């Protein structure tokens, strides 16, 4: 039950790699916060810096408004669940969960009570005598979470805890984690490279690129209003349409298609400026005929998404993706018209990549 406040954190490794670049972030009390980004973006380094396993080169970290930047890992009262779970192979499950309690000098009865409570919460009471090598990956994950839980930390740090589970188990573990976090109400920070995991679990999340945070917000913000072209192209199970055009006479001209620019955006742009139109394929639907704000072209690919088909058309060299309900899917090579929903269209400055 803690807040985390990160101010201007920079982490430079001895080999000159700058993993975190003057980064600010605020995490609220009891929040499930996800750090998302491609590999090498610095998300794990940020988590390790929070945990005290890496020392920040500059900047400060506040936990509950207390400066812990130079506090050693053991004194921050955080618990971390590692990607490989880091269960000690020579100890059985009970000893594993008990180990942090022993380090913190809890009395025997107190330890037993806490181990019992944590193992009941994660339904692993019947595994207490087993060694980590004798239980399944899903059970190992639960043991690792139980071990983190037993110390009642202020903050949980999860480093890709689901990536070692198979697809089916991952979904189960995901809803389980979410539920557990709700019940405990402990501030939780999750690092993941899987956007569906972040979108499903997080109250709020951040997308990182090259040691910087590119956007912070709720999963809904990310889906509907990506703050820049990088986030727009990173988030979403089907990639967002990002179509470059030029402002001309109050319209954005993309190939032959012209789009009306809403007045509140028109004020901020000048004629001849390059803009990128962003719209999710889910909001690009079939149109009856060509016309204003409509793309017309030959169908190149159709993909079955279950209830819908993803249709890729080539409109005079511009590739545009849209969706149509199943049953209405066109033949490949046919001429097809699709029209973005004007309410859902976003405009980005092509040069800066930022949302206008």
């Amino acid at each position, binding site marked *: 039950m803690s807040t985390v406040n990160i101010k201007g954190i920079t982490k430079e490794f001895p080999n000159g790699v700058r993993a975190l670049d003057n980064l600010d972030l605020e995490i609220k009390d009891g929040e499930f916060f996800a750090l998302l980004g491609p590999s090498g973006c610095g998300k794990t380094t940020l988590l390790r810096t929070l945990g*005290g396993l890496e020392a920040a080169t500059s900047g400060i970290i506040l936990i509950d408004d207390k400066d812990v930047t130079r506090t050693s890992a053991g004194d921050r009262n955080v618990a971390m669940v590692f990607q490989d779970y880091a269960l000690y192979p020579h100890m059985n499950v009970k000893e594993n969960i008990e180990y942090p309690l022993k380090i913190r000098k809890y009395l025997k009865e107190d330890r037993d009570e806490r181990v019992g409570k944590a193992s009941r919460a994660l339904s692993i009471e019947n595994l207490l005598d087993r060694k980590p090598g004798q239980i399944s990956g899903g059970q190992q994950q639960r043991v690792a979470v139980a071990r983190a839980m037993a110390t009642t930390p202020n903050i949980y740090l999860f480093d890709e805890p689901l990536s070692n589970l198979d697809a089916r188990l991952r979904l189960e573990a995901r809803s389980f984690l979410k539920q557990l976090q709700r019940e405990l109400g402990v501030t939780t920070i999750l690092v993941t490279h899987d956007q569906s995991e972040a979108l499903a679990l997080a109250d709020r999340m951040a997308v990182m690129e090259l040691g910087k945070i590119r956007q912070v917000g709720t999963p809904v913000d990310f889906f509907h209003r990506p703050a820049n072209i990088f986030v727009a192209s990173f988030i979403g199970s089907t990639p967002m349409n990002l179509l470059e055009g030029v402002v001309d006479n109050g319209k954005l001209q993309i190939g032959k298609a012209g789009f009306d620019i809403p007045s509140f955006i028109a004020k901020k742009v000048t004629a001849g400026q390059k803009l990128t139109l962003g719209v999710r394929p889910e909001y690009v639907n079939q149109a009856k005929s060509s016309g204003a704000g409509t793309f017309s072209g030959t169908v190149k690919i159709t993909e079955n998404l279950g209830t819908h088909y993803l249709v890729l058309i080539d409109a005079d060299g511009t590739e545009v993706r849209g969706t149509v309900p199943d049953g209405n899917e066109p033949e490949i090579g046919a001429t097809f018209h699709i029209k973005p929903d004007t309410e859902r269209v976003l405009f980005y400055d092509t040069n800066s990549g930022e949302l206008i």
Partner: protein
Amino acid sequence: MRNPFAGDLEKSSTERITSALFVVIVSLFFLLPIAWLFLAPFDGQPTYQLKLSDPGLGNFREMAENPYAYRSLLNSAIFSVGTGIVIILIGAPAAYVLSRVKFKGRDVFLYFLLLFSSVVSGSAAMVPLFLLALRFNILDTYHGVIFIIAGGLLPAAIFILKDFTDSLPKSYEESAKIFGASSYRILRDIVTPVIRPGLAVIFVWAFVQSWGNFLIPFLIIRDVAKQPAAVMMYSFYTEAGQAVIRTVAAFGLLYTIPVLLMYFYVNRKYGFRFYGGIKG
């Protein structure tokens, strides 16, 4: 048509008989001396033949008449256990540091250590070692022999132990660190138990190397009462330079048994298996 994937199943019977015969001959070649080692000590009149006539324990009684025979076995044990302990006490921390701390030229350093320790050894090192022992005033002492043998074995021991430590995931130590464990506790509670099979293997290896070492104690030890078994063995000769087979056979068996027992014990307890618990 001959199935190329059938392998041994399709080999003709002559082929199989020939290969079996070859294996038997090779094994016999190695097994016969071992059989002799176990028979001759109990033979009343042992020769170089493989036989057991007039069985009894007379050979051992005759051997025991040499006042230094049993004493030398105890000395060997002191040298070997001492070497094992020194190797673990110095080698394990060194290997841990070399595994965990990255510095420029670390691998080159390790290879040079290993290379020089195997190049400058044996009779080439005899004179310098003797002079060193003289200067340090450790001639004719137990610790002198132990330090010199351990010094020769350390580079290889560090090299092998570093490999063991490398296979220990860093996350074990990091998770303990986040729970608030001190470096000492991490070493005691996590690192040492997990690499214990490696430590046991290295201890036995050092023990056996020291147990079988003839040159160093021969060089350093003057006092007959401090001689180890390997050197003692050398004294079971007549004045004419003829081996006294009765005592050599009995002593040879006693000399072999500890090493054999040790091998079986470690192999049974640790083998070369390693723990699971990390997925990925």
